[in-house]
């Protein structure tokens, strides 16, 4: 159906696509797999007419074509659903779908439009209310609107860019059903992803791209996550962190009856009590927005608790500021690495002393030599690239930015390390590295509190798992007894069910 030959695209000195060949068969679900920055999205943007390729040809249904703009792509029957939806929030679903391709006639026939949308949504099993405002429907439903938008424009080939990034596990399941029904009705689908599990779960065939080059195209049947990961990264990777049993020691962190409110003054953390011991990783899982952020902010001094106590090594931190808490022995890998973890305009040398800048001054003057030495130490120990202390943090990739933060916090040698979403948006190589370092910290006798929305991460790292739901800890499960389904039930508020 579609054949790309020798597609090459350069951005300055960066070769984003290097002679990529890709063949898509009619009626298949084809996954484009690669790490962040491998060139998947660039390739699809070329296909969708957003970029012009520097070299290479595109054949559509046997005919060579030039796609100069998205409207030309749409005219050919190619539709794209971007990772970040392009919808008008205050418009209804139907209005969004017909936007730019309204039914003919001077007066907009909204009844007709709604009817068309309803028919389309029934035909493909994409259940969504055409008259609901887009801002009031869930993210999963917004995605369906985007798909309907493409179908309404007559798409035969659908490109979905990282479609699962914003979905809950249940919604991913539903998306899989939708994709199957689309294919059954003669559509062809390309999904762009870096998640291995989804490739195997959703796609028929997969093309792996690494650093702008096509590595292989394979049938997904018979493949394993490990093999795909190796192709994607270029070497064997450990998806499961090797980890011995924990040796919990004395209590490092003790939280007693903690209560806190969120930005809007509503209770966000409710009567939370737990402990973290030396030499163990305690994982807190939960659906986003169930009080995890507020809990961490209380622990790190960024938010005032309403009541309750937080003890670190027996010392009361409840009313301390972030600086005092850091000094008391808490390291914090924050949720938002660009807004909290780093000053993006600072160099690496400046960023590695963030939070301990006063200790790197002698006689009132910043000691550049010691700062650079620390930066070099972290660069070496945490494999930060490029290894250049004078580089600004903003010129590093997300993975390397995170390594600088993790390196800084671990090198400070805190008794308790609070890691929030430590691997969000990172590629497999960086995830593996950071997971290993967290386990090493545990084995070195540190207490680690891991807060993550990724169940896989919680399950593979934690020794004990706490589930947060509506501000409360609703379950505590030893890691070896925990299952994804059990935790999922607790996370959805299914109190009483066994984890």
């Amino acid at each position, binding site marked *: 159906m579609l054949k790309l030959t020798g597609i090459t695209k350069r*951005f300055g000195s*960066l070769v*984003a696509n290097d002679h990529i060949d890709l063949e898509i068969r009619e009626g298949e679900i084809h996954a484009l797999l690669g790490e962040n*920055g491998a*060139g998947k*999205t*660039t390739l699809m*943007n070329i296909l969708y007419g957003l970029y012009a390729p520097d070299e290479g040809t595109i054949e559509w249904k046997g005919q060579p074509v030039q796609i100069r703009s998205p409207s030309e792509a749409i005219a050919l029957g190619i539709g794209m659903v971007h990772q970040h939806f392009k919808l008008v929030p205050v418009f209804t679903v139907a209005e969004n779908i017909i936007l730019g391709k309204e039914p003919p006639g001077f007066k907009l026939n909204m009844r007709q439009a709604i009817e068309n949308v309803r028919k389309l949504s029934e035909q493909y099993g994409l259940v969504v209310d055409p008259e609901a405002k887009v801002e009031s429907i869930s993210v999963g439903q917004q995605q369906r609107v985007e798909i309907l938008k493409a179908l309404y424009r007559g798409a035969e080939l659908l490109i979905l860019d990282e479609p699962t990034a914003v979905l809950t596990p249940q919604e991913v399941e539903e998306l899989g059903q939708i994709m199957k029904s689309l294919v059954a009705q003669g559509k062809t689908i390309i999904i762009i992803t870096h998640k291995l599990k989804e490739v195997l779960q959703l796609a028929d065939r997969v093309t792996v791209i690494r650093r702008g080059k096509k590595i292989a195209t394979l049938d997904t049947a018979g493949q394993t996550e490990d093999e795909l990961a190796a192709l994607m990264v270029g070497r064997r990777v450990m998806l499961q962190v090797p980890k011995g049993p924990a040796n919990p020691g004395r209590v490092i962190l003790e939280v007693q009856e903690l209560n806190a409110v969120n930005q809007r003054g509503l209770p966000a953390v409710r009567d939370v009590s737990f402990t973290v011991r030396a030499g163990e990783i305690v994982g807190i899982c939960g659906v986003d927005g169930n009080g995890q952020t507020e809990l961490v902010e209380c622990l*790190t*001094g*960024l938010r005032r608790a309403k009541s309750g106590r937080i003890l670190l090594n027996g010392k009361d931190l409840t009313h301390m*500021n*972030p*600086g*005092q*808490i*850091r*000094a008391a022995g808490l390291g*914090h890998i*924050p949720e*938002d690495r660009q*807004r*909290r*973890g*780093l*000053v*993006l*305009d*600072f160099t690496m040398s*400046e960023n590695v002393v*963030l*939070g301990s*800048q*006063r200790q*790197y*001054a002698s006689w*009132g*003057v*910043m000691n550049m030599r010691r700062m650079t030495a620390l930066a070099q130490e972290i660069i070496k120990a945490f494999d930060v690239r490029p290894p250049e202390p*004078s580089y600004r943090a903003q010129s590093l990739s997300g993975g390397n930015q995170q390594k600088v933060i993790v390196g800084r916090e671990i090198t400070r040698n805190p008794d308790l390390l609070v890691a929030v979403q430590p691997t969000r948006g990172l590629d497999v190589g960086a995830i593996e590295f950071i997971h290993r370092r967290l386990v090493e910290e545990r084995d070195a006798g540190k207490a680690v509190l891991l807060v993550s929305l990724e169940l896989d991460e919680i399950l593979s790292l934690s020794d004990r798992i706490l589930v947060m739901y509506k501000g409360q800890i609703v379950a505590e499960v030893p890691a070896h007894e925990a299952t994804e389904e059990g935790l999922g039930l607790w996370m959805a508020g299914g109190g009483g069910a066994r984890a």
Partner: protein
Amino acid sequence: MPDKAKSWVKEAVETVTVPILAIFVGLLVGTVFILIAGADPMEAYKALFKAVAGSPRAIGETLTSTTPLIFTGLAVALAFRCGLFNIGVEGQYLVALMASALTGYYLHLPPVIHALVALAAGGLAGMLWAAIVGVLKAYRGVHEVINSIMLNYIALYFTHYLLMYYFREPGNRAAATPFIQETAKLTKGLIPGSRLHTGIFVALLAALFVWFFLWKTPQGYEIRAVGLSPGAAEYAGISVKRNIILAMAISGLMSGLAGAVQTLGVSYKFYEQMGFIGYGFDGIAVALLGRNHPVGVIFGALLFGALGQGSGAMQAAAGVPKTVVWIVQGTVVFFVAAESIWKFLRRRRVKAEVKTA
């Protein structure tokens, strides 16, 4: 190392290219208006140049008008490094004019010491005036632009009130304080025939101080961290409030020194102010031209000092309205600002491309 040196040179060249181009474009636009005014551009620019650098005296005068602009440019730049827009330089300058005129007149101290004390009094007055802005911002959340503009008017009328009711020299038809003591005056005669005084050295020292403070001390590090990323500063245990107040205070110190050197080096008294003099507002343009870096501020101040100094001569010699010079100034600022906007947009585009790649 050679690589690093090369990139440093490259960065420096890139940094100055646009302001220099902007100056040329500014002069070009000025030419158009001179023609519209019916004068000969060559004549006008010749007169301008002669007044700016045509003789030792002219150079001295140019440096004299550059001096307060270095301070006010530094004041704006320093606040900006903490993410604050200090529009109150004008008011901080005014209270300092008054403070140094009073200490210069009423105190009786040995030479040098008296000048230093009066200088400090001006600096301190500006510092306190700006600290009010910082405190209101930090603890009450009042936007610094709003409250510093309001404090400008309070400063204008407050000093006017003090002058008229308490410190006006009796028997003098012009409303002004008495002349300061000889001991409080800054030494002049650095270039014979011009009013250039030692305040220029104080200004250069201040630039050195600001550079050292921002980039070499932990306090400067914290101020820059707050300016670039309040979220990260808070995370790192750096008090955003404390640094806002501190940055405003030091910014005000610079504004205050601007006022002090004007009193102690040029006017020798506080005379009735009919409105704002404009050194504070020019400081914003100077900081912008200098990219909020002390070295850049010195050059920006030099440009504005020169244009301001030469405009009168141009009017007298070539019959070109003074306002043409303001058009030149405006054009230069416009193009430098436009470049920042362009750079910002380009960086966003590059980022977007890298992201999607």
